[in-house]
């Protein structure tokens, strides 16, 4: 497909600009030539060509609305259209963030209620909706941990992170000046308690734990883990990316977590948008409430107002209040599902993941053969040993069968990892057909491995040269 620049022609335009109803001024005089640009190099296309260009681009993309998307750790559940409609109600979209609070009572009530509902669902004292994504929420959470120890006058340098953790965890720790120490997993895929005990000192600020972990397994020893951390005055941070596994079944706050971040674009059904916008609310226990970012919403009787009068706040992590439009979608989802709907979502998500695990385990190595939660992790080791067919080959071949591949090569502690998270919005038929495809590919890997290694065979482009893209990066088009 041609680039938009390649279909450009001087003199064309799509969007027009209204004639000015106020007098034209001489911009050179008013502003001065030294502050003005010479040329403006943007595409010039007619609207029909613009629309065809992007519509055709969209047809070279794959979304949940097209097919099954079992990406582990991403919770690609169906994005309800009701949420989309609610979010574009003009009362919500047209309001400027600096509008007087009196104009924004609906939006303020929504955000306040969202904070309250999330606190109840997760067992935390209070939430902030400011962070724009999960990683942003992690950073915010780690900042609050840092502030907590600063106020106590304690200098703690370390953060413990399990070897199975998502890369944003150590990155967030490092960005707040902490040193990360890796915590080993035990043979069952949980925290190695002995190792934790040996690592936990008064120099450790926190343990960042994902529960269930990135293997889809619930931490059975969570009570002991929390006790070890709290016993030496540390804090327990929870990466809530896998919250879809426990809605209505348990609450991180009850389990002993002091800070958790959520991903509204995972658990709460807001669309992923090709990589954003998301939203990463952060919940805290009572002892950390003072450090939440500002401004915060104050409720007086039935009026809501923004206030920054919180002297111990960590400050701000972005301008304005949060990804409001995303929050509206998540709020709509929570209100429409209610307690029963959210609990059922978790039950069906876990049932679906276990179903897939049982159907596929005769054909792929299963590192941890126990009840999983909302996702299961296989290893492609058998196929590698047989004929040198790697997990990446299997993933590419799945594309030919009409699927977006599962997450591959994560978590790092499983060799040739394949992480499958079906979510609750998939029917038994969909799961069965997917498993049939995986089994067929496993057979192909044994009988006709080259076919798998050549995959994908049915896409607009075949395997792309990532090495070239990294050796000679071209991230900005230049006319030849």
């Amino acid at each position, binding site marked *: 497909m041609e680039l938009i620049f390649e279909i450009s022609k001087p003199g064309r335009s799509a969007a027009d600009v209204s004639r000015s109803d106020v007098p034209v001024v001489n911009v050179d005089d008013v502003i001065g030539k030294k502050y003005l640009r010479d040329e403006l190099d943007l595409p010039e296309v007619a609207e029909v060509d613009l629309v065809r260009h992007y519509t055709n681009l969209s*047809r070279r993309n794959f979304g949940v609305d097209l097919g099954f998307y079992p990406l582990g750790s991403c919770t690609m559940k169906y994005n309800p259209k009701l949420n989309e409609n609610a979010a574009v109600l003009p009362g919500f979209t047209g*309001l400027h963030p600096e509008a007087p609070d009196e104009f924004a009572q609906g939006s303020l009530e929504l955000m306040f209620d969202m904070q309250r509902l999330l606190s109840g669902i997760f067992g935390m004292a209070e939430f902030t909706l400011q962070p724009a994504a999960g990683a942003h929420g992690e950073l915010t959470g780690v900042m609050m941990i840092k502030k907590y120890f600063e106020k106590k006058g304690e200098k703690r340098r370390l953060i413990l992170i399990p070897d199975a953790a998502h890369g944003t965890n150590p990155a967030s720790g490092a960005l707040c000046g902490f040193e990360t120490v890796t915590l080993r997993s035990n043979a069952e895929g949980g925290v190695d308690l002995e190792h934790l005990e040996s690592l936990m000192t008064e120099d450790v600020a926190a343990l960042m734990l994902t529960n269930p972990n990135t293997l889809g397994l619930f931490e059975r020893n969570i009570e002991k883990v929390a006790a070890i951390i709290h016993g030496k005055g540390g804090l327990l941070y929870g990466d809530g990316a896998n919250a879809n596994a426990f809605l209505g079944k348990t609450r991180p706050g009850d389990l002993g977590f002091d800070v958790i971040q959520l991903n509204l674009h995972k658990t709460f059904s807001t669309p992923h948008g090709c990589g954003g916008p998301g939203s990463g609310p952060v919940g805290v226990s009572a002892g950390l409430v003072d450090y939440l970012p500002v401004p915060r919403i104050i409720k007086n009787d039935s009026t809501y107002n923004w206030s920054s009068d919180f002297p111990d706040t960590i400050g701000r992590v972005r301008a304005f209040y949060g990804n409001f439009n995303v929050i509206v979608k998540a709020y709509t989802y929570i209100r429409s599902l209610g307690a029963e709907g959210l609990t059922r979502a978790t039950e069906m998500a876990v049932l679906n993941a276990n179903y897939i695990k049982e159907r596929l385990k005769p054909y792929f190595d299963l590192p941890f053969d126990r009840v999983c939660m909302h996702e299961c992790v296989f290893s492609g080791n058998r196929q590698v040993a047989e004929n040198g067919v790697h997990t990446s080959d299997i993933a590419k071949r799945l594309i030919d069968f009409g699927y977006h*591949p599962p997450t591959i090569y994560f978590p790092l502690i499983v060799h040739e990892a394949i992480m499958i998270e079906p979510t609750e919005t998939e029917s038994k038929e969909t799961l069965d057909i997917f498993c049939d495809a995986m089994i067929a590919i496993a057979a192909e890997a044994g009988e006709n491995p080259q076919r798998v290694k050549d995959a994908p065979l049915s896409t607009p482009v075949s395997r792309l040269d990532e090495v070239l893209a990294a050796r000679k990066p071209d991230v900005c088009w230049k006319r030849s």
Partner: protein
Amino acid sequence: MDYCPHTPDDITQMQAAVGVNSLEELFADIPQKFRLKQMPDMPASLSEQETLGLMQALSGKNKTPCATLTGAGAYAHFIPAVVGHLVGRAEFYTAYTPYQAEISQGILQAIYEYQTMIARLTGMEVANASMYDGASAMAEAAVLCAKMSNRTRIVVARSVHPQYRQVLQTYSWANGYAVTEIPYAPSGQLDSTALAAVLDDSVAAVIVQSPNFFGCIEDITTVADAAHKCGALLIAGFTDGTSLGILKPAGACGADFVAGEGQSFGNPLNYGGPYLGIFAAREKYLRRIPGRLAGATVDKNGKRGFVLTLQTREQHIRREKATSNICSNEALCALAAGIYLAALGKNLRKLAAVNIYKAQYLKNKLLRLTGWQDVFSTPVYNEFSLRCPDARKVNEKLQNAGMTGAYDLRKDYPELENTLLFCATEVLSKNDMDRVVEIIK
């Protein structure tokens, strides 16, 4: 509402296949004492119709102003119809990050085109696929400069957006950097004498915004020269991207990084989010910059294609050595921005010119009111600051007339009493502006 397709029959069959007799058995790993019987304090579920009714009632509690006179980091611009229709395509909005390039050529090419347009607009050599917003983009640029140079001081003009400075303070505190603020001169631009006084080899970066928070256009070239002389880097920000349609970009003035807000490009006001962090840099920093990058390459048959490239900079590989932890960004907002820019094309300059005409008209009319004065002498784009007899009264009147008034600068600059920051874009009509003046009189 319930989006699970499972029938009771399905569940029975699946339970059997898994080897459990009840769903509760699947949660046996959760210690009994922590098992919930039900979610506390949750309202009952609602039908689709009831839910929409609820949301309509909530949005109905908002008051949609008939005109907005505030910019201050978020701008009311006209969004062409094509933008909503195109980003509303399910293949875009229900897709995930394009890690599997072969089935994501659509968004990867669109991002590559967006990166190209942003680089050209900002006068820089490379741009990433987006950051969270202008404020955090600016803070991340500062952190990067500090990490690259091993210097620990960030110098920022006080004329930079107050909330951007707050975010910078928070990120700097977290990393152990110091922030020094430089006052503005009576002209409204950054005070270069004050700047010269603090520049030394402890400074990693100097940050300036143009047009600045007061609406004044900064002399970026002079600031860049001063920064470079002491070995510091120059980060230039902006809050209304449409200004780039007509103003000289920071890239042509010596900036090393540009970190600004892209909301003006096709993204609604949405009460503050999601917005769009624009991040552009000189080519030599390409392997260090945060955020995703779409790169052009070829497939095994020599056909052009696109992939996410230089991912080794990112958190999922670099982990604790990453210079940023950003994962999800604002991809769909960037897509909207790309479509907006491609739709307007060179008309962006016309649009920017109209913004200037509108601002000049409103400014001149207001200046004819008794006791109203210009505060700064520097040229402006679509925002300007004026002193008036009673700022609070002005906004009260405007609010009672159903408008969002101007931004009261006293909030963030206590020395600027009774000084209002106005914004006039192409959506403000002559009638609106005449009415504003009548109301204030």
